[in-house]
């Protein structure tokens, strides 16, 4: 049984902070298919289009029929743990300081056998679920998990190395003035975050939900205005070394494409809040996050971006807004590469219209703020890179994969 995680002690200021090390992160282009699946928490392997064989490790030709048509597809994740090994020493600097480390061979029900990392609760011969996860290098690895959940399962050290669990971590929610920000504060607190810092801009303006926000356990309201470089830098100066998960939930939702908007005042505000806000947070907090990627139980773990799914494809009814979201998505991709040397993940949570005032005229389905917040927490607990929350986001994602041009026309109709 997994030993429950203990709240980490305060850090000894005389101790050096360990430099984040990464496991080997080179993959073939074909093997990146596993990374794509792991990023969204799917279990996908290559399945031969000719003979139906399930193939692992990734190959360019089917080992059974030599076909080159080997697309990645969702496959069943069940299997049996054939053999288990505990590694006690290694020349690899990443694994060396994480010993002992268990690996084993899993016979998948679909055919292939896979050498995988092992959850601590597994015993040889047991049934397992195999999962693909993104490791600290940003690449997919396989980990075998108990067939059904076990107590404190998420506290297993090998599992926690792959996730960004808010438990015992310190979270900063960038904007507490919004319904989503307040829902995130609640969800993070409930997930066991040890502190939830919540940024509030323009404290001279009252906002709905303020009293409730301040009453949430372990919430600390801090001054933070994403449109103001000085404010973001001052907040980072005070709190950055104690932020393990940063959630950029900045919102700026206005209707209209390029022609409906008269002048640039609104566009500037939108970019200030969203693109420049993200840039300010990244510059102020990013270097500290990256340096603290291996800082114990509450190491820096994730930079979370809340993004409209229309970052992926423009919705002209909210056209200028979509363009700004696209800029943020692009910046998030850059940030992901920049934070990777620290083993810090960038989680992008995509969603369609929200059940909030600025989407008032949009018919359902809409995502409730608390549903979005819980989805973000779950994605962190699973160590995902991309999560699509709600029917609209999942629908856009699916239609975009099939025919981007058709989707462009449909959204612009």
């Amino acid at each position, binding site marked *: 049984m997994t030993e429950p995680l203990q709240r980490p002690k305060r850090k000894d200021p005389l101790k050096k902070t360990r430099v984040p090390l990464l496991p080997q992160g080179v993959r073939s282009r074909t093997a990146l298919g596993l990374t794509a699946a792991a990023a969204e928490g799917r279990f996908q392997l290559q399945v031969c289009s000719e003979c139906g064989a399930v193939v692992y490790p990734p190959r360019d030709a089917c080992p059974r029929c030599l076909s080159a048509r080997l697309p990645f597809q969702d496959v069943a994740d069940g299997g049996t743990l054939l053999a288990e090994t505990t590694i006690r020493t290694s020349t690899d600097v990443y694994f060396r300081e994480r010993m002992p480390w268990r690996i084993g061979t899993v016979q998948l029900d679909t055919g292939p056998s896979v050498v995988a990392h092992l959850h601590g609760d597994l015993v040889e011969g047991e049934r397992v679920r195999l999962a693909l996860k993104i490791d600290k290098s940003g690449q997919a690895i396989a980990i075998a998990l108990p067939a059904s959940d076990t107590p404190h399962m998420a506290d297993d050290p090998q599992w926690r190395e792959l996730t960004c669990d808010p438990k015992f971590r310190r979270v900063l929610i960038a904007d507490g003035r919004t319904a989503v920000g307040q829902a995130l504060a609640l969800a993070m607190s409930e997930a066991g975050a040890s502190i939830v810092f919540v940024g509030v801009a*323009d*404290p*001279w*303006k*009252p906002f709905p939900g303020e009293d409730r926000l301040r009453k949430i356990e372990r919430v600390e309201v801090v001054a933070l*205005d994403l*449109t*103001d*470089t*000085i*404010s973001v830098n001052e907040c980072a100066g005070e709190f950055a070394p104690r932020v393990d998960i940063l959630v950029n939930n900045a919102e700026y939702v206005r209707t209209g494409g390029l022609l409906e908007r008269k002048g640039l*005042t*609104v566009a*500037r*505000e939108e970019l200030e809040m969203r693109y420049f806000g993200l840039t300010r947070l990244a510059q102020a907090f990013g270097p500290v996050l990256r340096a603290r990627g291996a800082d114990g139980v509450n190491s820096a773990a994730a930079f979370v971006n809340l993004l409209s799914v229309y970052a992926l494809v423009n919705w002209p009814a909210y056209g200028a807004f979509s363009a700004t979201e696209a800029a943020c998505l692009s910046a998030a991709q850059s940030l992901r590469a920049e934070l990777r040397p620290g083993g810090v993940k960038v989680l992008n949570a995509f969603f369609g219209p929200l059940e909030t005032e600025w989407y008032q005229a949009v018919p359902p389905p809409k995502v409730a703020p608390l549903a979005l917040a819980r989805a973000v927490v779950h994605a962190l607990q699973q160590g995902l890179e991309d999560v699509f929350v709600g029917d609209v986001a999942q629908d856009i994602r699916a239609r975009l994969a099939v025919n981007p041009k058709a989707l462009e026309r449909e959204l612009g109709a």
Partner: protein
Amino acid sequence: MTTDLLAFANAVAAGEVAVVDLTHTLSPEFPTIVMPPELGQCAPFRMEEVSRYDERGPAWYWNNISMGEHTGTHFDAPVHWISGKDLPNNSVDTIAPANFIAPAVVIDISQQSAANPDYELTVADVAAWEQAHGRIPPRHWVLLRTDWSKRTGRDYANMREDGQHSPGPCPEVVRFLVEERDLLGLGTETIGTDAGQAFHFNPPYPAHFYMHGKGRYGLQCLANLDLLPPTGSVILAAPLKIRRGSGSPLRVLALVPRRD
């Protein structure tokens, strides 16, 4: 006879004329006027460092700044309001510069404002002031002392669910000051020259409507009005020369003769 400006400069240097700064420091946190969120908003003050003796500029420190024309302590030109849109010389770049140096009277309603944040200056208040200090001469700034500038943050903006609550002039007194007293402009310590609830007055925002409609000016977010005498001070308030500008942040100084 030539005016002895050198004697005046010497008096300033000797401290016989005090120079009182009526300006708040421009900073990102300073509240700006708030419109309903679907309307256009006045940009708050922002500052981006260009370099600070570093790789971006090794021997020098400087910033790029941005703000609205109506951010911080600022000047309102007649073109700011629809009632003044067609007047000649109605923007900050075309106003005759002699208007930027003018005497002031200070009407103190700080006690009334402390008791009632929605206090409205009335014609009767002005009459009482004139009883004590004499008739307001033409082409003077009328400065409304409310001590509002001593408030900070939430108390300064004083926003509630039904809007902002801060003192200001009632419609009749604005008309009286413009038509009967020929004021140069109205200066206040609050975020606007109008009361916080002036949207509900008739006409809405009477200080803006009547004053700018008659080519008068506004100064708002002033500080230190409590350091000025009721009469006898001179205001230096020159806005930036922005082409067709409707207003401008500025440094407002008061010259106050020292009393013996």
